[in-house]
Structure formats: C-alpha cells, structure tokens
C-alpha cells in the first residue's frame, strides 16, 4: 500500500497538491495571487502541449489559436448572448476539439519544420480572423468579458480563482501522468522514438498523434475560456503567434517529456517578466539573455537536466 503511494507519479502529484494548498500562506497580496493564477493556467496549457511536443515529438506553433478560439467563443456567447459560462466553456471545448480533429490528419502528416510551419499558419489565420471581424470580437481593441458564474454564484476574487486554477492544474497533471503511464503513453513514446518502427510493431501512429493533438487543443480551449472570464477582457494578442511561441518555450525550458518540467517552465516564464519589470527598457534584453543561457547550460530543459545532475551526484 505504502509503496503505491511512493511511486514517482504519486509522490509528484502529492507534492504538487501540497504546494497548491500551502502557497496561499506565502501569497501576500492580489498581485501575487494574480501571478500564481496565471502560472497555473499557463501550466495547464503547457502540460497538454508537452504531451504533444515532449512525448509525441510533434511541434505546434499554433496552440494560442486554439486557446483564443475557446476564449472568444466563451466571451461572445456568455457576454453577448447570456449563455451560462460552464455550458459555453464545454461547447467551446467540443468545437475546438472537433476543429483540431478535422485539421489534425492533414497537418500531422507533415514532419519537423513543415509541421511547425503548418501549425504556425493555422494559428496566425485564426488570430487574423479574430482581429478583423471586429463586429463580433471587438477587433484589435479587444472585448470585455462577463465574469464566470455557476447557479448565481459569481467567481470574482483572486482567492476564489486561485482554487479554481489550482484544481484545474492538478486535474491536468493527473490526466497527463496517467496518459503517459498507459498503453497510449507507451505508444506515444514509440512514435517519438521512431514513427516507422512504431508502425512496424503495430502502433496506429496517426490515431495516437491525432488523439494527443485533440487533447492538447482542448486543454488550451478550456484554459482560454477560464482565463477570459478571469481577466474579464480579451484581445487577439492572446491568440497570436507570440503567445504560441511562448507556450513552446515553456515546454522546452522546463524540459521536454516531463510533466513537472512543464509546470516549472510555465512558472518561470510567467513570473520572470513580472520580476523583471523593474528593469523597464532592459527587460526584454535580460529576458532573452536568460533564455539563451538556460538553454545553453541546461540543453535538456531545467527539470530533466537537474534530475540528471542529482542522479550523477547520488552515484
């Protein structure tokens, strides 16, 4: 019994739950709560994206597009047409999942940089549409979004949102760890190792790639919806190319094929710009420099590289 709890999977989940539960003791003001909430949201998207990039070896430079679609669907239906937010969130996730499913087959036939191009193009097309159809989306000025409410109870304060974001992150982590340890996860790693070899031993590689693509898009859509309600404002930048790139950076910086790496990557990349704001004009320079240095000295990403170091020390 004890042993089952001490597997790295379970220990990690437990540690994460404890951190989420105890963190409020350290958070002193709404600004710090805000960063923690954004970290949890980003981490959830990045966990989904890590399944695709880290485990399946398929890159996507367009996931902010899925996030933006989910966010705008929620924002428009709830704010303009009075849908219940939870219904809007679920319908948005279904629509984005279906879209991802439809485009996944032709797109995932592409490899490497061609796949990067196709997903980048898809994301940019979505961002341009959101930008141009201002009668519906408010265009580049963005739109304000109604708060999230369930049965008359309104989620409003940072503290309430913190627990929602924490719960979503914990759920995403649990789902991801289970997928990785299931036959699906082994199939995914086989696809990463060698697609042809995986096919030869009977793995339906296309099916698995499509599955993970859809899962990661749905993660992004759900977070997009929640984030829009949380900030109560939405602009096409959230769906833009740079946000897509940011998400990929979080995956690689934290460590590919590491669920906890994804969380670390999201935490660092979300909070670093906040920490660096005092540098004002020098912020971007230092931010870029830190990114380069981390990748030069920890090329496998922060968590896997540090794990490797610890193992070597232990020996």
């Amino acid at each position, binding site marked *: 019994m004890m042993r089952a709890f001490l597997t790295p999977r379970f220990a990690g989940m437990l540690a994460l739950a404890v951190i989420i539960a105890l963190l409020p003791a350290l958070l002193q003001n709404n600004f710090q709560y805000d960063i923690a909430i954004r970290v949890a949201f980003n981490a959830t998207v990045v966990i989904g994206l890590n399944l695709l990039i880290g485990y399946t070896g398929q890159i996507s430079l367009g996931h902010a597009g899925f996030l933006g679609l989910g966010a705008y669907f929620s924002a428009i239906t709830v704010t303009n047409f009075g849908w219940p937010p939870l219904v809007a969130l679920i319908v948005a996730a279904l629509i984005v999942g279906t879209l991802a499913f439809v485009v996944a087959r032709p797109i995932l036939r592409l490899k490497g940089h061609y796949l990067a191009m196709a997903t980048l193009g898809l994301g940019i097309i979505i961002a341009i549409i959101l930008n141009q159809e201002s009668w519906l989306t408010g265009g580049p000025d963005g739109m304000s979004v109604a708060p999230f409410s369930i049965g008359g109870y309104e989620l409003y304060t940072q503290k309430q949102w913190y627990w929602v974001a924490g719960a979503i992150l914990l759920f995403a982590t649990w789902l991801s760890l289970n997928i990785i340890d299931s036959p699906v996860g082994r199939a995914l790693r086989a696809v990463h190792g060698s697609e042809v070899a995986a096919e030869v031993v009977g793995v339906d590689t296309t099916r698995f790639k499509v599955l993970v693509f859809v899962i990661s898009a749905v993660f992004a859509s759900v977070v997009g919806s929640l984030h829009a309600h949380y900030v109560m404002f939405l602009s096409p930048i959230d769906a833009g190319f740079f946000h897509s790139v940011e998400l990929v950076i979080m995956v690689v*910086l934290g460590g590919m094929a590491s669920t906890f790496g994804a969380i670390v990557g999201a935490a660092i990349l979300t909070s670093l710009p906040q920490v660096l704001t005092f540098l004002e004009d020098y912020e971007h320079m230092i931010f870029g420099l830190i990114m*380069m240095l981390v990748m030069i000295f920890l090329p496998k990403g922060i968590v896997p590289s540090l794990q490797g170091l610890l193992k070597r020390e232990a020996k």
Partner: protein
Amino acid sequence: MLGEFIQYLFSGLTNGAIYALVGLGFALIYNASHVINFAQGEFVMLGGMNTVFLMAAGLPMPVAIMLAVVITAVVGLALEKLAVERTKNASVVTLIIITIGAAIFIRGVAQVVFDKSFHTLPPFSGNTPINVLGATITPQTLWVLGITVVIVGALQWFFNHTLLGKAVLATSHNPLAAKLVGVNVQFILLLSFGLSAALGAIGGVLITPISPTNFEVGIMLGVKGFSAAILGGLGSGFGAIAGGLLLGLIEAYTAGYISSNYKDAMAFVVILLVLFFMPSGLFGKRGTDRV
C-alpha cells in the same frame, strides 16, 4: 485594368524579393546545421535600423549601408560563436529556442540602443515615379529587384565556382563526409550565420525606404521569410527565392482584388494547401525516413 495588374505585380515582387532574401538566409543556416534561425528577421531589422542611425550620426549613405551590413554580419557571427556553438549535443528544438532567445535579446538591445519609433530611409535615387504600362513604379522598387538579382547571381557563382562555396554545399549534403575530406565544418557553420545575417541586413536596407522600420519589424519579416523557405522547400535556395516571390505576389493580389485585411491570412491558406498536397514544399527534396 492592365495598369492595376502591373502595379500589383511590382509591389508583390518587391516585397517578395525581401522575403526571398530572408528565406535564403533561413535556407543557408538550415543547410549547415538543420537549425531554423528565428533571429533571421532581427537581422533585417538591424540592417535598416543601423543604416538609419549611422546616417543620423552624419555618415554618407553608402558608407552607412556598408557599415550596417558589416555590423549585422558580426552579430550573426557572434550568435553562432557565443550561443549555437556552445551547446554540445543539444537537440534541434533546443537550438531553435536559443535563436528565439537571441531574437528577443536583439530586439531588447535595439530598443535601448536605438529607440521605439518608426524610421525610414531616403530612396537610393530620388522619388520620381516611372510609368510602366499604366502602372507607376518608384525607382526604389527597381533597386530592390535589381540588387536581389545581383545577390542571387553572386550566390550562384559562389556555390558553384569557388572552393569555399563547394565546401558549404558538401557540408549541407553530409557533414561527416565533408569533414573526412578536409572541410572545416565548424567554420562553414560560422560562415553560414555571417552570410545569412548579411543577406538579411541587405534586405532590411533595401526595404526601409518603402516600408518604415522599428525594433519590432523583425518578427513578422522572420515569419514571412520562414514561410518562403518552407513554401519553396526547406534547404533549397531556388525554392526560397521562388517561395518568397510567390508569397509577395499572393499578398499583393489578395490585397488588390480581394481584401487588404486578409492578405496575410491568404498567404498562409495557400501555404497550408500546398503543404497538404506537397508535404516537402514546392521544390523540396522528398525525404525518406531512416529507422
């Protein structure tokens, strides 16, 4: 009608030529290292911005341009020497993230060293428009097209008729084999970064009199150049040029006949369609998987 058509043709070719130069830069570095250098657009920005500020410091235009290209090339060399070369056994994805970090870093430096406003350069030879079959063309358009043709010709000669150029080709085909016959692969990688940076800078200098530059223009130019390189088939120099021109033309004709709001979107729709039917781009090598 015809005048309109020709007008769009020239504006498409002009932007397309710049995309082609950026795309060529992508292809060069990709061939030498299999890395997609996302700082390529920043080289274009540096070319334009350096020229603007060197001229403001009182240098005559030709000197400013040459110095701007040299400075940018040095930045390219530094990127290879100080960052890309330092990583041992790093995966291609890691290297790509390093170039994204470099792009953010270069933008950050540019916003401090230069400023955040838009700048433009005077056209190389006046502003008197030329009439071609009912279309009005600025002399700068001809400069862009002319210099692009000269550069492509020079590169063609370099790769086919010089020992160094042939060494670059050899490295792109098979780095290990190239090393075995005595090619200094490390140096070739360095050269590719320098050359790509110089190409980008020249593109930046050429386009700044037509469309203003600021520290952020590199992002979109980088994406367009990458698109050009992919559309044509990654690693093919001819493909990058064809891809760039095609991209410029699609944008110009979409803006002219359909909607200027959706010119960028249309370019990406076409790229997606092309990739669905030709997964290695228009002129890319059909790859086979090794197990």
